[in-house]
């Protein structure tokens, strides 16, 4: 017998110089996916993990059973948060290029996910974010200037100078610290949810990671523990198609959807149009209700696109077509919500332009304030001795000695 065994290598649909090709994306029309009761057993709703929940159709109308019927005011608030995120990201990107901050990661193209989810959840629900969920901070009301101070590692930095830019945290706002190592937060969110269940509260935990990092063992630990203990947790795969240069096929997205991992573990899996604010909001409400009713976890796959570079250290023109995002069939989340509001007569191009101008001014003013608290190179600076604090709650003797050594070293300079 001639061996037919041959190593399969996932095919990347388009590289620089190629025509963008999204024929691999399984899409379904808006309004077509049924909305089951949020208490439906996972085994009966597998179709949710293979279809695509969409509310906004190509004419920017909200259609179908997942239509969340939100007030126009809420939609305007959502648009504002999304635009603020985009304006903030653009400004921080430019500031990184000028050398004032060492690193930055934009969330362009993915804003609907953090904003719609943040708005659909209760403020008491606990978020275990990835590094591209900055919009959660705006939804929960953290001032822009506070995030900037973290980016600058300055005297008002919530991380006390210890973390890379964008690794924010906010205990009061119930947003967990970011590691920098991928996927570690996913099973931690499950543990938090298990504790909520043990304590008998109706809080829900929510976590996000990318298609790429769903390859880590932590992803599988999260699904397993969530399934075993039916934890009140919403686990989100933000499938933005790219893990730096590596296409999602290399994370296992080639043969089945990421949402379908859910039913594999006995968990409800829902695949949603991640660029559709209304659909993301509706699916989040459904999953949160499910969790609070004691029906356990949900795995949500958000189909979206990482429109920006992975980070300021990355150059996507080296590995994907330049116009890939413009051809992405699910469009741009900001533009789609804007057009929907215009269609409802609740928005206009003029109001949109005015809002952008207002937000740009706000971000610029916030930056001015932030740098007054210091930058990496000028102005007031955190005391380097802070690095020895919080290693432990109380500083052990060996660290106190090292702190003294550092002081002597700095005095000598």
């Amino acid at each position, binding site marked *: 017998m001639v061996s037919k065994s041959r190593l399969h*290598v996932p095919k990347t649909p388009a590289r620089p110089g190629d025509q963008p090709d999204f024929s691999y994306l399984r899409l379904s029309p808006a309004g077509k996916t049924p909305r089951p009761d949020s208490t439906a057993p996972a085994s009966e709703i597998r179709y949710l993990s293979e279809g695509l929940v969409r509310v906004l159709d190509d004419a920017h109308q909200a259609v179908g059973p997942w239509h969340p019927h939100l007030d126009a005011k809420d939609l305007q608030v959502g648009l504002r948060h999304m635009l603020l995120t985009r304006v903030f990201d653009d400004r921080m990107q430019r500031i990184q290029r000028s050398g004032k901050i060492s690193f930055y990661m934009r969330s362009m193209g993915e804003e609907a996910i953090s904003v719609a989810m943040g708005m659909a959840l209760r403020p008491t629900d606990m978020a275990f974010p990835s590094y591209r969920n900055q919009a959660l901070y705006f939804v929960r009301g953290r001032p822009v200037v506070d995030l900037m101070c973290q980016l600058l590692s300055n005297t008002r930095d919530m991380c006390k100078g210890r973390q890379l830019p964008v690794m924010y945290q906010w205990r009061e706002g119930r947003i967990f610290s970011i590691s920098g190592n991928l996927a570690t937060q996913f099973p931690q969110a499950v543990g938090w949810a298990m504790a909520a269940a043990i304590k008998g509260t109706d809080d829900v935990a929510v976590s996000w990671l990318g298609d790429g990092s769903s390859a880590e063992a932590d992803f599988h630990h999260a699904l397993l523990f969530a399934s075993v203990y039916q934890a009140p947790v919403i686990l989100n795969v933000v499938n933005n198609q790219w893990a730096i240069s590596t296409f999602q096929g290399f994370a296992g997205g080639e043969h089945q959807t990421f949402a379908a991992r859910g039913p594999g573990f006995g968990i409800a899996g829902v695949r949603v149009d991640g660029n559709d604010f209304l659909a993301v909001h509706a699916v989040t409400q459904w999953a949160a209700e499910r969790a609070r009713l004691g029906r356990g976890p949900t795995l949500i796959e958000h189909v979206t696109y990482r429109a920006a570079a992975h980070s300021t250290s990355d150059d996507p023109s080296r590995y994907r077509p330049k116009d890939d995002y413009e051809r992405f069939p699910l469009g741009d989340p900001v533009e789609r919500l804007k057009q929907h509001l215009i269609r409802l007569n609740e928005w206009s191009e003029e109001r949109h332009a005015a809002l952008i101008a207002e937000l740009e001014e706000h971000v610029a003013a916030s930056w001015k304030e932030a740098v007054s608290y210091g930058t990496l190179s000028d102005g007031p600076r955190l005391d380097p001795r802070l*690095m020895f604090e919080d290693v432990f709650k109380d500083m052990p003797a060996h660290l106190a000695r090292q702190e003294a050594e550092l002081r002597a070293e700095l005095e000598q300079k």
Partner: protein
Amino acid sequence: MPQMNMIQALNSAMDVMLGRDPSVVIMGEDVGYFGGVFRCTEGLQRKYGEHRVLDTPIAEGGIVATAIGMAVNGLRPVAEIQFADYIYPAYDQIVSELARIRHRSGGEFSAPVVVRTPCGGGIRGGQTHSQSPEALFAHICGIKVVMPSNPYDAKGLLITAIEDDDPVIFFEPKRIYNGPFDGDPHKPAVPWSTHPKGEVPDGHYTVPIGKAEVARQGSELTIVTYGTMVHVSEAAARGLGLDAEIIDVRTMVPLDTDAICGSVARTGRCVIVHEATRFGGFGAELSATIQEQCFWNLQAPILRVAGWDTPYPHAFEWEYFPGQARVARALKAVMEAA
């Protein structure tokens, strides 16, 4: 002779070995089409194909585990872990599996895997892109541990590692990928073309694993160091006008105790310098070994210079990094001891 930086030298080592030995495969996150986030594997997939240079899922435990399986089936995988800070999901596969397969199977099975990984700070990488975890691997029985300090050694040692029948953890100090670094971040960057070890032959050659190198001969004291800190130590000694002998350890396991202790026995004074945290660091092993063999020759206590025992802080990178000032203080203290 061609000039190469460390990235080009490592690339050349893999290129040479892919060309010579059909059992060599390269694998890791972004290493294929893209050529690696630090460009170390650039062009290799184009040249050798997708079955020799594999892009992998983001799963370090999976990368090392499948590399072990491939090695057991006769391949010689060179696995890249994108940052040493990301190696821990693979730690069980390295410690409990890779390191012990030969021993636990009575010598029947072995897994000649090389794990390459960039380490060290000085690039504003914060706590998850700056670590130097070599001691965590040197402590494990059954894996060799290597850290070159220059392009010539990097290429020769990587070729030796790939040809080695035992597993090797190969640390690459990323701060010196593009040029030697003396510890002063305010000075303009210096390229490897200004350094004699930036001369790297195109073809196959080896640098032995298990041999330290005298980076500078001297008589007044011995500095035992490796990686980026070789260059910082040289500058610190030069700044004090000391005739220091600088030993570049190059290989933590197996350790060249003859070269290290031979030097300290001659000079009678020793400072150990590494970037990793101090407590339980590899410097402790060096210090104990030197003390055991050179006690009667020592004219001063052995001192260690290291990173502080804290995570690597983003804002205080240069207060954390054991730069020339910290090294110089230790050198003076050792010279001033009776």
